[in-house]
């Protein structure tokens, strides 16, 4: 790469002066092909983010922190944050654990079966959003087949799908396939001989996992946790379809402030969005720090 730029530079210097401008233009001609892409990417990805950032600091036409003040004064908005964080955290944790068990067991099955099951997981990861909410209403709604079955067996008194536990079930469901797909390659780091060596030296399988398996996997597990968390906290379609926007979550608040029927406050929505992004940034930073501290990171 470097030698190429140097040789190009010397080439430019050796050319007669009158054509040097043309040559520079010619040299940058390939960059012109980047412009249409850059334009679209700017207009529909970067510019909206800049708008959100700037306008979160504008209140009634003036620069101010009023929007942020309003968030911290409103128990309703703060509740949306705590609801979102609660559901995202637990669904990511439970989803991650189930995915980890699944992947570690999957590796012991034969290849054909493994491939078929990974293909199925891939497929079920697409079962999200509005269709997933409908499927959950059918099986776990008030008159859902599974609800009735569990009631008949006396396992549950009542199950309200439209409550925080119902949402947690729904969120965990869509976290599992994603967790599996992300963790599956990471488990390659576990070598079979390490396990056998540990057992030969008198370790129990449990001790092997605590002392060797989990530490080796920890960067992958942490990284996957963050992706699952970000996935959950930004989710909107399934909770909107399930509760028609009646459950108080961050994304529901933001959307209702820009496209609701009344009380449109885009700048307040922008401030909530900035806080949401800050939250994600903060969690990613902690994660990076933890991974960097781990001696098993590549």
């Amino acid at each position: 790469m470097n030698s190429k730029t140097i040789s190009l530079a010397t080439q430019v210097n050796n050319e007669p002066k009158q054509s040097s401008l043309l040559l520079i233009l010619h040299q940058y001609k390939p960059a012109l092909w980047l412009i249409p892409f850059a334009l679209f990417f700017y207009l529909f990805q970067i510019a909206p983010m800049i708008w959100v950032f700037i306008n979160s600091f504008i209140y009634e036409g003036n620069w101010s922190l009023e929007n942020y003040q309003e968030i911290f004064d409103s128990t309703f908005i703060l509740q949306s944050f705590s609801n979102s964080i609660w559901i995202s955290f637990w669904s990511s944790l439970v989803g991650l654990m189930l995915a980890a068990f699944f992947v570690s067991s999957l590796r012991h099955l034969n290849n054909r079966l493994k491939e078929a099951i990974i293909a199925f997981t891939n497929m079920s990861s697409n079962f999200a959003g509005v269709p997933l909410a409908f499927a959950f209403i059918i099986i776990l709604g008030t008159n859902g087949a599974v609800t009735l079955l569990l009631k008949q067996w006396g396992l549950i008194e009542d199950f309200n799908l439209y409550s925080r536990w119902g949402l947690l079930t729904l969120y965990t469901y869509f976290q599992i396939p994603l967790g599996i797909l992300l963790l599956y390659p990471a488990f390659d780091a576990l070598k079979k001989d390490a396990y056998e060596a540990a057992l030969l030296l008198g370790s129990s399988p449990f001790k092997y996992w605590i002392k060797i398996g989990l530490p080796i996997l920890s960067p992958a597990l942490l990284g996957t946790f963050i992706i699952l968390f970000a996935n959950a906290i930004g989710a909107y379609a399934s909770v909107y379809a399930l509760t028609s926007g009646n459950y108080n979550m961050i994304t529901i608040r933001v959307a209702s402030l820009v496209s609701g029927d009344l009380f449109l406050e885009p700048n307040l929505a922008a401030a909530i969005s900035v806080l949401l992004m800050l939250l994600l940034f903060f969690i990613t930073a902690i994660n990076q720090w933890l991974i960097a501290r781990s001696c098993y990171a590549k």
Partner: protein
Amino acid sequence: MQSSKQFVHKSVVYSISTLLFLPILATFIYSLSSSWGATILPDGFSFKWYNALLTDPRFIDAFGRSLLICLSALLLATVLVLPMIFVVFYYYPKLDKVMNLLILLPFAVPPVVSSVGLLQLYAGSSIQLIGTPWILIATYFTIALPFMYRAVANSFTAINLKDLIDAAHLLGASTTKAFLLIILPNLKKGLLASLFLSFSFLLGEFVFANILVGTRYETLQIYLYNMRQTSGHFTSALVMTYFAFIFLCTWLASRLTRGTNQ
């Protein structure tokens, strides 16, 4: 000892798979049952809900609109992304690192956040964008971008780009001609796989469609949402039809990627 362990592993895998499969299976049975009230098993089976769905002109229209938007978005993405990746890899390989960060943005920024900015930026524009399919096509390009960039960039690293282009130059071809006739056929599989993958992803997109356009241009997901008050059997038939379509796309994508690995 060995077989009992195998049994434990199998039961873990199968029970979680069953858990994942249950909602899909239930929706499927629900869509085929003539009625299923407050009982554990349905009363009888029939195809009437599929019949009702496939003869509903509103469904056909919504499906057509979704196809149109997704295909246009993928076309736009291909036209914008392919030359960009080629230029990055052939002329400015150092930009690859920057691009790898940029393509994280559509993943890292929740669609709800983007839509706040999009709605305010283009609500007052002289060309009507909000409420039209155009805004969706343009934003869907950003969704497809990470998939396409990763897949096509992988194909680029797999081929010997510099040598291929140099050989073409020596034989008298222009860079454009070399790209179209030599590089493009090499990218075909990776590109197609990423297109099918993005397509299934875009078909399921609800947030942008709901906030930016809503009922003004009813796509499949919006239609699905609007039908929530009608019979659950009808929506199940709708979900299953949609899912069958998604299944076809992911299956094609996985077939294509497997083809490249061998």
